[in-house]
């Protein structure tokens, strides 16, 4: 099975990448953009009982894959 994890910067954290992308998009003529956030996307291929895998991935997200001081995460299992 595949865990698809998205890690994104917390709203309060300065996101210079997001700002830069936003202004680039605006320069290109895209209008109405309220905000851009640049985060990370990870895919983990993993075997096992779905519920146990869910717990494992959640723990890995908290411990290693994201830093709760600056980042939020969410994931799906497929």
């Amino acid at each position, binding site marked *: 099975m595949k865990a698809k994890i998205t890690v994104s*910067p917390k709203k*309060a*954290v*300065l996101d*210079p*990448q997001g700002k*830069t992308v936003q202004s680039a998009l605006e320069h290109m003529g895209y209008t109405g953009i309220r905000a851009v956030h640049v985060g990370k996307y990870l895919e983990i291929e993993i075997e096992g009982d779905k519920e146990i895998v869910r717990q494992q991935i959640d723990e890995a997200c908290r411990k*290693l*894959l994201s*830093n709760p*001081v*600056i980042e939020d995460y969410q994931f799906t299992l497929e």
Partner: protein
Amino acid sequence: MNFAVLQFPASNCDQDAVHVLKNVLGHSARLLWHKENSLGDVDGVLIPGGFSYGDYLRTGAIARFSPIMKAVQLFAENGGMVLGICNGFQILCEAGLLPGALVRNRSLQFCCERVHLKVATTRSGFTRAIPENKLLQIPIAHGDGCYFADESTLGELQKNDQILFQYATPQGMLTDAANPNGSLLNIAGICNKNRNVAGMMPHPERASEGWLGGTDGRLIFESWLQELTGRNKPSAT
């Protein structure tokens, strides 16, 4: 004194730290491979700069899980003095030994230059030998040095006098223009509540020999040495 300088895969200021502690300050310093489980007989631990694990995922994120970090944690809990420089600061934040986190520079560019640092407090074992009101000139060299913490953490840092260094103008003012990376409150270095663990983005080991353009960094090592003198060794495992 005996210092351990930790060596992670792709630490790259490790030898610089040993050089200054040993050849400039005349103390004993040795490299300690990250796969070790014990610090051995040490008075202080230095986590050097570099790009441990290529800075992949996040700076310092993988290094904190190295076996040696458990020993560092214990050493710190027992009052042992730990200084993290640059990547070392990032690792200490990731490991939870220091509050907050270091994120991408506001400019999105790596930045290497000498900066002016205001010493926010001399009431710490890492700043005690610095003359009052002395502005330090020390180089920075990092891409992820923007200090971030939530408001309550920042409030705690201020209340407990945990901010050690702040980026300043040549006149000592904490302005936005003097801030090379966007750090909140211009923070360049902090210590923990117990004041025995400190982290800083600037590189004092690069400002310890006159030929290399200044010796202000030595004041930080000298503070550390003063503090350690007459102190009992914390139990290290």
